[in-house]
């Protein structure tokens, strides 16, 4: 009974949401089924009526002997004999008086309720309370299950768990409480203000806002499509540009540049025809560029790059060329662009006659180049230029007097021309002396390259023209090649000639010296000058190897010369590479030979095979021979047991399992158990593993940085728990793991509950209050 009631009350309790709201005066036992109670009563009545049919009821009546039942002081008799006194009976007489309406109402309410049942035993109730509370608490705690599980299985736990969360303040808040202090900040702020960039709250410029407002959906779509297209185009363009940039060919770039320049020129021409004003502007721009160039030192050989090139220029053709180009560019940029006029055209023509691109300075430098800094030369040359200008006043004076009326600028130009001519002469003088030698060599060697021959012949012609009296004997050759020369001349010599001329000085000088030597010792042994040449060659090119046979070297030298004259590749490379390779090969061969000699006696492979055979034999199970010589037959020296007996008493060992190294020719696998290793081996499978293969696999995967990449190593050696030194680790909180912590404080809940002080405490309190 009590247990069922307990269960019932438990149910009722569970239905209640807030346990703490439970009234304390044991309302648990009152069941409040109002609807049923009436029916029940009727049913009860019926039952009673039925039971009263037999005589039992009378007996029951007889039992009730109390007078109060029969006669009541309120003048109500229980005539119904066993019928209960119902509240409505009591209420009937009150109907009339209105003053008792409130009481009546109350009584009506009470009427529907049943009588209060006996309260449960206190301990029983407490137990129920405890159980309910425990269930509830367990439920509350079970929300931690996933967190705990996760933390237990986590690869790494980093404490303290609650990180100092960086608060994301919107930029405008940050900015508003911040003043620009440094000049840089001020500058930036100024810029921002100037461009109407929003510094504070709305992060959009007025323009952007307007555009945002203005755009409808279609517009936005269209705009987006447009933007996409633009982006795509841009990416194509970028890809193309990248591709083009990747092209290493200098020629290609040169052509490209030229093409561009031409295009620009054309456009300029067009513009001049169509819109002279715009053309003038263009011109002004060009002028400005020139001025800028004059002001700047951009192409003046003063940059880092230029300096490095100048250093390299001595050895590297390309560097030299690059330098030249740069200077040419400088000159070009420095050139004053003339407004279309007679004189300008004339000058242009005059300049074209000379060298249009390359400033003579460069040539001069190259001519003079001694390997020292070309800068100095440049300065020197300009000095010399000045000196010359000063030195020949009358020469200068004449043209100056003639052309004075035309323009003042023409003076220096003419002077330049003169100078140019002088240099030309000087150069050719140098050339010719070298060229004779070259010609000689070429003559003796018979060059096969037609182009080189052309150039050679051209040079020869030059030299011939200038030093006719010195070299009478070469006349025939000259005449034979003159025609070629003429053809050659017609070509735009500028580009082709320059490199040649540039290349020459080194060699020419050596040949110059050779010439002098030849002059001195023309009657001496012919071998001598050559030796001298070689000597000098060696001095200049330390990369040359002495060990190379002289004959070969000479040949190479000749080839080299040809290279020099025909192609642009540096001479020494072609000379050095093959020889070194050969030497390397030789060395290798030598080494191999040496090793072979040193280990001549060893036959490692055979030794190994023998060893393996022995190992195999040793590991094979042995037959057991139990024959006893002399047993059952004659014995003695020189007598062997019979074959039959031997066969009979020989116990053949069973064939063991095949060796593991049977198919591995280069390996001996020892299949014996190593006792010393046993001490280091795990005997039983450790706990978390279910199969020995799992365990072996974990052991066999190395974790060190020797076998793993840095990242993998870090990952593999990650510590399980990381704590920060000096940081307090607080217990885990619901907020840490994303749960909502209960907003109510424990204290408030406790205080809301009626105090359940023990009796003793109450007494004590009373006592205290009395005191």
């Amino acid at each position, binding site marked *: 009974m009590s247990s069922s009631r307990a269960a019932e009350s438990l149910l009722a309790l569970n239905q209640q949401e807030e*346990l*703490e709201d439970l009234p304390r005066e044991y309302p648990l036992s009152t069941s409040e089924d109002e609807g049923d109670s009436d029916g029940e009563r009727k049913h009860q009545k019926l039952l009673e009526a039925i039971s009263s049919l037999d005589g039992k009821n009378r007996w029951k009546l007889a039992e009730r002997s109390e007078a109060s039942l029969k006669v009541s002081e309120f003048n109500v008799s229980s005539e119904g004999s066993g019928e209960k006194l119902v509240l409505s009976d009591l209420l009937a007489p009150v109907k009339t008086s209105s003053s008792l309406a409130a009481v009546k109402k109350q009584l009506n309410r009470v009427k529907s309720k049943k009588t209060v049942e006996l309260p449960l035993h206190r301990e029983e109730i407490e*137990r129920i309370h*405890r159980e309910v*509370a*425990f269930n*509830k*608490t*367990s439920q509350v*705690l079970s929300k*931690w299950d996933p967190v*705990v599980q996760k*933390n*237990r299985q986590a690869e790494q*736990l980093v*404490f303290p768990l609650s990180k100092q969360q960086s608060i994301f303040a919107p930029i405008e808040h940050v900015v508003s409480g911040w003043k620009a202090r440094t000049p840089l900040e001020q500058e930036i702020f100024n810029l921002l203000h100037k461009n109407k960039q929003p510094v504070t709250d709305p992060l959009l410029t007025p323009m952007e806002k307007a555009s945002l407002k203005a755009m409808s959906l279609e517009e936005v779509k269209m705009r987006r499509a447009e933007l996409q297209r633009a982006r795509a185009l841009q990416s194509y363009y970028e890809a193309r540009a990248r591709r083009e940039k990747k092209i290493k060919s200098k020629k290609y770039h040169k052509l490209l540049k030229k093409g561009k320049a031409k295009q620009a020129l054309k456009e300029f021409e067009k513009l001049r025809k169509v819109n002279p004003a715009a053309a003038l502007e263009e011109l002004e721009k060009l002028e400005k560029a020139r001025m800028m160039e004059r002001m700047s030192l951009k192409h003046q050989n003063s940059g880092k790059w230029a300096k490095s090139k100048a250093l390299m220029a001595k050895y590297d053709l390309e560097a030299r060329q690059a330098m030249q180009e740069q200077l040419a560019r400088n000159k070009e940029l420095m050139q004053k662009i003339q407004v279309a006029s007679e004189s300008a055209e004339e000058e242009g023509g005059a300049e074209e006659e000379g060298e249009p691109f390359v400033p003579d300075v460069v040539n001069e430098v190259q001519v003079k180049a001694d390997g020292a800094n070309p800068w100095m030369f440049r300065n020197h040359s300009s000095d010399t230029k000045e000196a010359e200008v000063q030195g020949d006043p009358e020469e200068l004076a004449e043209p100056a007097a003639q052309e004075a009326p035309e323009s003042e600028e023409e003076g220096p130009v003419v002077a330049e021309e003169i100078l140019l001519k002088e240099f030309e002469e000087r150069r050719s003088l140098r050339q010719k002396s070298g060229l004779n030698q070259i010609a000689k060599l070429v003559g003796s060697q018979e060059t096969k390259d037609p182009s080189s021959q052309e150039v050679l012949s051209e040079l020869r012609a030059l030299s011939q023209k200038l030093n006719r009296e010195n070299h009478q004997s070469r006349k025939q050759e000259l005449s034979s090649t003159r025609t070629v020369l003429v053809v050659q001349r017609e070509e735009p010599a500028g580009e082709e000639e320059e490199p040649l001329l540039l290349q020459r000085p080194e060699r020419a000088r050596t040949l110059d010296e050779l010439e002098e030597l030849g002059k001195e010792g023309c009657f001496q042994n012919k071998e001598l000058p050559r030796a001298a040449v070689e000597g000098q060659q060696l001095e200049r090119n330390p990369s040359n190897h002495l060990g190379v046979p002289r004959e070969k070297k000479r040949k190479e030298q000749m080839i080299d010369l040809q290279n020099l004259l025909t192609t642009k590749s540096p001479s020494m490379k072609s000379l050095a*590479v*093959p020889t070194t390779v050969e030497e390397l090969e030789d060395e290798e061969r030598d080494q191999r030979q040496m090793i072979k000699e040193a280990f001549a006696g060893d036959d490692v492979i055979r030794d190994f095979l023998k060893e393996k055979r022995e190992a195999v034999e040793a590991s094979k199970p042995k037959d057991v021979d139990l024959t006893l010589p002399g047993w059952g037959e004659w014995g003695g020296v020189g007598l062997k047991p019979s074959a039959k007996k031997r066969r009979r008493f020989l116990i053949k060992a069973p064939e063991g399992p095949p060796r593991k190294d049977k198919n591995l020719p280069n390996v001996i696998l020892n299949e014996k158990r190593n006792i010393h290793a046993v*001490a*280091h*081996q*795990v005997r039983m499978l*450790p706990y978390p593993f279910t199969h020995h293969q799992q*365990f072996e696999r*974990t*052991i*066999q995967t*190395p*974790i*060190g*940085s*020797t*076998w793993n990449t840095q990242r993998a*190593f*870090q990952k593999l*050696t*990650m*510590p399980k*728990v990381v*704590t*920060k*030194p*000096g*940081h*307090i*680790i*607080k*217990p*885990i909180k619901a907020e840490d793991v994303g749960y909502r912590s209960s907003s109510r*404080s*424990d*204290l408030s*809940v*406790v205080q809301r*509950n009626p*105090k*359940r*002080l*023990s009796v003793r*405490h109450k007494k004590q309190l009373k006592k205290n209050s009395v005191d």
Partner: protein
Amino acid sequence: MKVKMLSRNPDSYVRETKLDLQRVPRNYDPTLHPFEVPREYVRALNATKLERVFAKPFLASLDGHRDGVSCLAKHPKSLATVLSGACDGEVRIWNLTKRKCIHTVQAHEGFVRGICTRFCGTSFFTVGDDKTVKQWKMDGPGYGEEEEPLHTILGKTVYTGIDHHWKEAVFATCGQQVDIWDEQRTSPICSMTWGFDSISSVKFNPIETFLLGSCASDRNIVLYDMRQATPLKKVILDMRTNTICWNPMEAFIFTAANEDYNLYTFDMRALDTPVMVHMDHVSAVLDVDYSPTGKDFVSASFDKSIRIFPVDKSRSREVYHTKRMQHVICVKWTSDSKYIMCGSDEMNIRLWKANASEKLGVLTSREKAATDYNQRLKEKFQHHPHIKRISRHRHLPKSIYSQIQEQRIMKEARRRKELNRIKHSKPGSVQRVSEKKKRVVAVVK
């Protein structure tokens, strides 16, 4: 002849700042680095040996008390501050960095039974044998002021333990019953009893802060719910539990330090079987405290040693003892999980490293990487006999050592007897009871 040049991207070998390590290109081809397992094994062996070489856990001894240290408390905000109460009623506040006592209070007459700090760290509470609960300011009195408690509550009975709520101005005391007090009132707001016995310790759950656990001298552990003001459940063990400690990372786990030399870790939702029985001590376990990471706990025992147990292992990973350390009465794990403090009978508080061979101070990144690697290697090869032997080797005082031997024999005898009983009785009539279940006498709802 075309000459091919080697060209390398400088990004692959030039470091960005001079503080960067030089990048060393490595070839990870396994054929170039053979014998990985033996090499790592040797490294692990060396690491294990070095660990034992460097295992010097004892850091400092704080002396000053004139009687045995009966209770310890951590400061909730300051790592360097520790409070201790002694058997002569004296409370001392220590500075761990200076290793000095910074403040002394004569708090009670007789024992200081319990001490706890308020969650904000401004004051602390003590209970003593003189039936009082006192609240003290953390920093001592100003110049010329008398040393007086902020509040004093005079109780009817002796209070044996105290613990403060983790978030609110509420504390709980235990004695004849568990009382929940509001700091502002002189009477408890709630008293909870279940049977009549002296309760030796009460502890608030640090995560679900309305939960409390207590242990009484009639061998039981009782859980309470403060909000519902009822006890929840009671578990009766074989022997008396001296104290309990909640896991600060797992809300429903707590560990009980028992008189039967063992510690029992319970899941409070299923009290009939402990999650783990931790045994290694050879005498009654007097105190237990969790590491703030919730992965280990430390226990203090009457056998003059403290042991560190991993939560999920039944055997201790470390044992600390010194010649002069007597019965250890209280122990605490500092809130940065690096150190352990223990107070013992012979009036000293000792400071230990939680990880015996750990190097203190700032580590360079390479040192850190090396220690991590060594740690991982030790873990990897922990089952190998040599490594296992070395890593498990501890020197123990003779008393403990002989006790262990003795208990081993006893245990073996018991086991044998049980086996014999099973062997010689009708099959099925005698059941084997697991070690975990054996100790739980009953769970009372």
